[in-house]
């Protein structure tokens, strides 16, 4: 009699609601080579909803043995159909369709096809097709993951105008217990306590938020206000520690009051309101909150309500109180009583929050009949210390990058023309330079294996392909030396743009040329796993996806993330 839920162990990571989001996802894969099918495999297994495989090739001898989802018997059959059927065999919960057409034809001829997908994974797509696809998806706000395995190097790029994370789950968000600005029920609890006359049992079991509210009241009365400087706060904390009682058991054994340890450790919270985490502050300051439209994602209305709540009920410094109280020294009775106080405030705050939410939705003309679900509101409030908004850089901007000086020079020569051009053109970001500098800072003298440099090399290989119609080192009988020299020229331009000219060498060009654009399964398997990992983040709106490029260097087994 075994466990019946095959998703049990992953649901522990992203919850039933995350699993639901995954189960409703429609995913489109372009090109069913090893990297593409491995990516999809890792999404079919955990139970994504529906997959569409787009591939125009027939299965060849070369696929067999390098792609786990084709077999010898499939040679000559459409690769989209073959891989789809093998993929779906792994999980009966998932359904899908095959489109036996070249992805570039679909992108150019039928862009509307991509409407309605939750995610598009483009594997081994050449540059011009990728640029068209990313423009199409960008306008639909459909997330794109572009992935490639290239010899021992792999890269993955995410593009999407805006991505919202409901549960970023980054650093542990510190719960705001409202000690610095107690709500009425907490204040009343503290007021009812008499530290002088209460019995020892109570004294050593008073929960520390109550102790701090109480003691801060006494301190403020005596000193004409709360501590304001670092030194005063230190002094307050010290004073809190002196308020212990000498308690002993009946046998005369001293009892140390642990609740006072907790109070001393948290003393600064009594005069400093819990600050917003920077990511949350960014969300609340987002211009989008003042221009909501009825078609916008629930997230934005919830964020707007959060901002309005903080300004009104939160008096500019508090978010809604959480109903769950962390563990602390207390008797059960005192703990439960305190928890009741927090629950009561949480209920009041939730009601106020929902009123703000309603107003914001009404103002934007949202459909009353399709309210934000109670479960979504609860989860949002439970994790409102861990929300985040990400805005990706368009792929077009990355690929049209020119060095900052070039842009400035062009602007000086012809201000009007440069203005228009700046719209479409980006600049080289500093990410590659920073990645190299970071390695150097860590004492690495040989930075040639820095993964970010290999992103520069992939770009050079693409330049070569755009110019010649083939990848360096590929084709019938390539001249490896000539190809490498050509690649090195392209690489030098980008290396200069990224500010790493000194670090991109001939050896890099030779290595990239040696690969001949092959797609070894072992790199594909690793890249496919990374893609699926990021796909789960994008689909569940949990965790923080990569911003924006992941580069895997299989030569040294290192990897890095860079914003390109």
């Amino acid at each position, binding site marked *: *009699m075994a466990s019946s839920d095959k998703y049990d162990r992953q649901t522990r990571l992203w919850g039933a609601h995350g699993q639901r989001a995954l189960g409703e996802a429609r995913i489109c894969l372009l090109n069913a080579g090893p990297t593409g099918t491995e990516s999809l495999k890792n999404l079919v297994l955990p139970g994504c909803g529906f997959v569409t495989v787009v591939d125009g090739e027939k299965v060849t001898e070369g696929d067999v043995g390098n792609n786990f989802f084709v077999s010898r018997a499939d040679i000559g059959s459409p690769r989209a159909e073959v891989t789809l059927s093998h993929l779906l065999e792994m999980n009966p919960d998932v359904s899908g369709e095959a489109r036996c057409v070249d992805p570039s034809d679909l992108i150019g001829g039928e862009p509307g096809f991509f409407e309605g997908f939750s995610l598009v994974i483009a594997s081994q797509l050449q540059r011009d097709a990728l640029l068209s696809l990313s423009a199409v998806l960008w306008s639909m706000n459909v997330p794109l993951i572009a992935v490639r395995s290239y010899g021992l190097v792999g890269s993955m790029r995410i593009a999407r105008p805006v991505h919202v994370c409901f549960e970023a789950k*980054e650093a542990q968000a510190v719960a705001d217990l409202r000690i610095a600005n107690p709500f009425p029920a907490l204040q009343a609890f503290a007021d009812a306590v008499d530290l002088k006359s209460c019995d020892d049992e109570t004294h050593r079991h008073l929960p520390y938020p109550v102790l701090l509210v109480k003691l801060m009241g006494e301190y403020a009365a005596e000193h004409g206000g709360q501590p304001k400087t670092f030194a005063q706060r230190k002094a307050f904390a010290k004073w809190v520690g002196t308020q212990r009682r000498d308690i002993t058991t009946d046998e005369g054994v001293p009892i140390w009051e642990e609740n006072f340890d907790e109070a001393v450790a948290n003393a600064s919270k009594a005069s400093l309101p819990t600050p917003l985490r920077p990511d949350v502050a960014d969300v609340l300051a987002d211009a989008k909150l003042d221009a909501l439209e009825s078609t916008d994602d629930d997230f934005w209305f919830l964020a707007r309500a959060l901002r309005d709540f903080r300004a009104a009920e939160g008096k500019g410094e508090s978010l809604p109180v959480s109903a769950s109280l962390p563990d602390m020294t207390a008797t059960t009775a005192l703990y439960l009583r305190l928890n009741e106080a927090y629950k009561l405030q949480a209920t009041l705050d939730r009601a106020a929050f929902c009123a703000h939410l309603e107003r914001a939705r009404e103002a934007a003309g949202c459909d009353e009949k399709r309210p934000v679900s109670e479960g979504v509101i609860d989860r949002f409030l439970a994790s409102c210390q861990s929300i985040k908004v990400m805005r990706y850089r368009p792929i077009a901007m990355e690929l049209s990058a020119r060095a900052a000086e070039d842009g400035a020079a062009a602007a000086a020569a012809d201000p009007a023309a440069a203005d228009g051009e700046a719209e479409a053109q980006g600049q080289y970001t500093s990410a590659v330079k920073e990645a190299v500098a970071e390695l150097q800072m860590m004492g690495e003298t040989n930075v040639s294996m820095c993964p970010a440099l290999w992103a520069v090399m992939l770009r050079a290989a693409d330049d070569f392909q755009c110019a010649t119609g083939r*990848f360096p080192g590929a084709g019938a009988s390539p001249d490896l030396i000539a190809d490498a020299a050509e690649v090195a020229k392209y690489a030098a331009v980008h290396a200069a743009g990224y500010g790493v000219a000194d670090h991109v060498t001939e050896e890099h060009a030779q290595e990239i040329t040696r690969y001949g654009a092959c797609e070894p399964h072992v790199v594909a398997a690793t890249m496919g*796993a990374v893609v699926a990992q990021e796909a789960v983040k994008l689909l569940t709106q949990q965790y923080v996806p990569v911003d924006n490029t992941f580069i895997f260097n299989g030569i040294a087994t*290192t990897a890095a993330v860079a914003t390109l």
Partner: protein
Amino acid sequence: MASSAAAGRAAVYHAVFGADVMEKVRSSKVLVVGAGGIGCELLKDLVLVGFGHLEVVDLDTIDVSNLNRQFLFRPQHVGQSKSAIAAQAVASFNPRAGPIVSHHGNIIRGRMFSADFFRGFDLVINALDNQAARSHVNRMCLATRRTLIEGGSTGFAGQAHTIRGGATLCYDCRPKPVQKSFPVCTIRSTPDKPVHCIAWAKELHALLVGDAPNSVLYEPDDAPDHPPAAASSAAAAGPTAAPAADAGASRGESVYMRAVRRPDDAVCDDTAALAAWARGAFDALFRLEIEKKLSMGDAYRTARCRPTPLPLSRCHGFEAACEATLSAPLPAHRTPTLGECAGSFLSALQTFFSDPARRQAAREGRVAFDKDDDLSMRLVAAAANLRAITFGIEALSEFEIKSIAGNIVPAVATTNAVVAGLEAMEAVRALAGRDPADASYAVVLSTGISGGRTVSGDVVPPPNPACSECGRARVILRLDTKRLTLRQLIRGVLCGALGFEEPNILFAAAEAEEGAATGSHFSFLEDEDDASLLGLPLAALPAGGVTSGKLVTVDDFALDGARVEAVVVHVDCEGGGEEAVAAAVEVVGDFSAPEAARAAKEAKAKQAAQQAASAAAAAAAAAAAATAAGGDSDSDDDIVAEGSDADEGSDGSDDDDVFEILEGAGPPSPPSEDSSASRKRPREDEDDEPKRARLGEA
């Protein structure tokens, strides 16, 4: 890309790795330990790279919950050997590779997995999900000088790296998180967290349907005049039955042992009687026992949580819930009500004993708690919540309880696939014979935790000199601890294979045995200690005996300096005679007592000579300095420098970035609590404006 499609697999790998490396890949023998989530991925990757001689070991059979990560398995394979099915499934993908040899067995205890077995491979790759097996494979690889590639995953985090004895850290160079255990009295009397109640519920499971005498809740019955029949008839009378309550009146006597005694067939086959028995058990456990504890006075004076007795009558709606849960379980994701907990507890007990097969297994004490057994899980979840409610502790959903009770570590296909891919890469690199310092990169993933890092590489740290596995003279003794006697160990193994003359044996007492009677250690020297012990099997020796995993230290007064630590690994020789048991002993590792003594003697002599020399030099320098200037002498530096050299290696391992994550190593913690996250937590007492500048904004 058209070119790669035409090139074919072999050409692809020749292009990236080169022909000689690919020949090594084809001809090398590789052992994969584990055919689970990582193992399935790994086998596929290795076969597609072109590894020609693969063997795989796994002791498990396929379970339904494996299907969504262990993609080589299909529903029709449930119940079959993982290693066999995995080997079959991947072999077809590279017909030119030889067949994959599969072994269905326990890598630690299986007799065939000897040192020679390990020596038969060029490379060993771990794809395991538990600490004990990884430690063992690590130890075997160190002893047989095999390169090991170690990998593991927990949720979104994982790691893969190469271990080469002496050149890199080993699996045990870093301390492992220890499984939390709780004092027995916290479980029995003073719980204050849900986890204590869950531990209690698991003990209760053992008491009710499992190995009762080994449950911490077992209270020996001093009244042998109650035949089992009495138990059943008393219980059948229902919760108001007097006998149990009477028992509670006398302090010290158990108020629940009789009520939880397994019902006889007459009761089990009578629905009403069985229901009454279940209610009797409920009443004894959640009302009478609590009342008794409260009546014992000061037991709860200092406790965080003071219990309230829970009569069944307070559990509103338990009858309906009991009825409902007989046919369908409660929703797993919602915290149940009190009535639902009570109903589910009763119905789980009734289901257990109305099913003849389960009843029989329970009577024989054969039902061990298994989180994947829905009925066992239901019983534990309901009992844990009822326990929690009596102590005013929050109740949890069955899903949450299962996490804690089963030590369930979250697992996801994607992380396993990354780890396997990296292990396969490392395998090729290891065979390519890169310089260990170059090839041995540790790879740490912190994929889910932040957008910052997904996979990151790091140099594998050097061995930890303080490591108990790779830092000292060690041997592994594979033997049958239940059958090999102390005499056989001394005469045959220590004096025989290892060359001791008068071995002195020392091992630490098992934790449970530690106490005034046995002390904290067991030590034995023939001719001095009780000779009657010689005839005992190792496991039966005092202080808990020598059991699998025990570290035994042996030294010798006659051979000064000969000292070895032996890890004993139990290998079952059931059915073998005395000679067969002796013959089955295997010593793994190079150690010879006479040689160790000789080496120690030499080292000592050398040290003495050096000391004499440096003392002489110091004296000479001091004399010279004194004559020259009468000023301060720095000749001490020589001696100090010697000491500091030796210390140098020990401070290099403070490396937070490589953290060990072990599937099944302990209770799961949210990914955000990993070391890198906690390091970033801002200091609370900082008055400065929080630093908000980010990279790229400057």
